[in-house]
């Protein structure tokens, strides 16, 4: 089964994707790790480099890097790529 998720891009990630967000169609067995492969296919090594220092947030909760390969995507998930933060 395939369904849609939304991916959000911020800061350096957005500079590469040139868009703030997009909708992707994924298969029901996809994990965040599989999503990473897809995003690298789409945007190449510049985004791969960013992803290497970023975290994912799923529906506004951080996902620890050890859970990336076991976190399955669910319909309508909002997946954000969070480069190293620098607010304040």
């Amino acid at each position, binding site marked *: 089964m395939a369904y849609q998720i939304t991916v*959000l891009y*911020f*800061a*350096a990630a*957005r*500079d590469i994707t040139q868009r703030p967000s997009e909708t992707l169609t994924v298969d029901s067995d996809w994990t965040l790790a599989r999503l990473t492969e897809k995003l690298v296919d789409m945007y190449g090594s510049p985004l791969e*480099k*960013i992803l*290497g*220092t970023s975290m994912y*947030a799923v529906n*506004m909760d*951080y996902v620890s890097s050890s859970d990336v390969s076991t976190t399955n995507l669910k319909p309508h998930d909002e997946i*954000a790529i*969070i*480069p*190293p*933060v*620098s*607010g*304040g």
Partner: protein
Amino acid sequence: MSQYNKEYLVVTKDELPLVDTITKLVQDDSAGATTVFLGTTRDSFQGKRVLQLDYEAYELMSIKILKAIIQEARARWKIQHVAIYHRVGCVPVGQTSVIAAVSSTHRGDSINSTAYLIDELKDRCPIWKKEVYEDGSIWKGACEGSRSEKTQ
């Protein structure tokens, strides 16, 4: 002690309110101590002249995390009202990007919790600043991994 504790959490593209306005939001006749922290855009970083900062935020997640941080602070210190305002977009040199204010009965609680809030905000809130120099710009962040020269 008031019967309820107020929290004001705002992420805005506008210039931030006056410090007096934010101070009044958190003050209370039962609170003898108020601490306010302001972060402003510095004119230099490691010797380079900064023209402005451009802030970007994942706003709803930032608010969610600020609420969690305040809950953690309430568990550690006896504090009353809290206000945290963060500006996004362009913040010129000398202008304020963040204000955190906390009131409490005793001074240590408001000072220590203000330090905690600003430390955790900087560590955990999905907010990014891009430093704009005369010769380019750079997204700041723990790893400084993402440099983009000459964005204008």
